[in-house]
């Protein structure tokens, strides 16, 4: 019997992914509903183009559909994993480069259960608020690195500050975010 009602699906991402592994299209649609906007928004922020951002989004969810086992739940939340995949893929396209390192190497976000809409929105809002608390120069450096895919030396050139300063700004900003989220 084909299920249509989203309430019939488990709340947790892990359980949903198990259904996806069993080739349950409705479960995959549910997963898309949960995180489609997140993935698209990140890709759009990097690429600033709706069609390209949708390409990235489609590619990422197709990848999940074809290989749901690629996500290892013990290493972080699914939302974080998808978010990083979206960013990396978009930056790869922006910089016309080959796909970068596997996301698993660098993602270890323990952000709680973000499967529920409410919790997800609260967490995103909180992170936005934290980013807004950063000094402008730190936030700008992080955004240049993250959303424009610039290297630290390119950022140093663009902002006309020493390389060491760029490194320190980025590291300080990331440290602040990390500690603030863990509180």
């Amino acid at each position, binding site marked *: 019997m084909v299920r249509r009602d989203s309430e019939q699906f488990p709340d947790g991402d892990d359980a949903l992914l198990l259904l996806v592994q069993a080739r349950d299209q409705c479960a995959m649609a549910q997963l898309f509903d949960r995180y489609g906007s997140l993935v698209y928004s990140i890709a759009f922020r990097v690429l600033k183009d709706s069609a390209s951002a949708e390409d990235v989004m489609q590619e990422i969810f197709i990848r999940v559909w074809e290989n749901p086992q690629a996500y290892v739940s013990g290493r972080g939340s699914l939302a974080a994993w998808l978010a990083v995949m979206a960013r990396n893929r978009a930056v790869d396209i922006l910089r016309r480069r*080959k796909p970068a390192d596997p996301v698993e190497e660098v993602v270890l976000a323990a952000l709680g259960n973000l499967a529920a809409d409410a919790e997800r929105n609260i967490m995103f809002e909180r992170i936005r608020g934290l980013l807004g608390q950063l000094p402008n120069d730190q936030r700008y450096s992080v955004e240049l690195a993250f959303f424009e895919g610039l290297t630290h030396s390119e950022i140093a050139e663009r902002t006309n500050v020493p390389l060491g300063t760029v490194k320190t700004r*980025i590291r300080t900003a990331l440290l602040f975010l990390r500690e603030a*989220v863990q509180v």
Partner: protein
Amino acid sequence: MKDVVHIPQEDLALYAIQALAPEEMADVRQHLDVCEMCRGTLAQLPGDLALVAMSTEQLPLPHGARERFLERISGEVTGSESATGVDRPAILQMPQRHRLSIWIPWSAAAALLAISAGLGIQLHFTDQALQQQTILSENEAAESARARQVLDVLTARNAQHVLLTASPARALPSARAVYLPSRGALILEAVNLAPIAGDKTYELWIIPANGKPPIPAGLFHPDAAGNASVVLPDIPKNVEAKAFGVTIENTGGSSTPTLPIVISGAPTAGE
């Protein structure tokens, strides 16, 4: 003993958000392959990338994006382009020119593969459609069987037909009063009154037309059948009545009526 130079934390943080130059990224990756300590340090960077990524303002999906995605997975897309994305960015794929002769056998093979894939997809769709048809047929068969059962019961010769109606409702209490103001004479006959507790009593009231407070016009208790009467109570003469009412009061009666009014009525004719 050989000294090992580890990657500074700052650089690991930059590596984590891919902000190192490509050659530096390669150096770090090479070092990480052999250095458990730096791998451990990197692993402690808890999702910096994810944190920054999730600071992005959420946008609505483009119109039809969901449908496009669902179409792709329902077609079991296994494409080698964006779906895998391992070898090269799908969006950047550029056609390359080669000598035709080289491509003839490959083209033939590709055509065969495409046909096979097409047949496979068609088979998949057919299989899905067949499953759906099977489910529909089963549902229809079940509904049909139930309908037949209903019809059998309705038309059976030996079925008992019973008419059920609501139980007779208890008759509502009512009373008839005859009032002659000029003589101060009043007679009340009440029927179907509900029994009341021993410390309670029914009390009749005249509600004057001049707006003055209600005038008590006698206490009474119904019998077992709910009948009761008040005959010529001691009431003032020449009181034009706007209405009559009956309330339940404590034994001995009350100087003012206690709501609710059990029954009431207004005079329709007479003086």
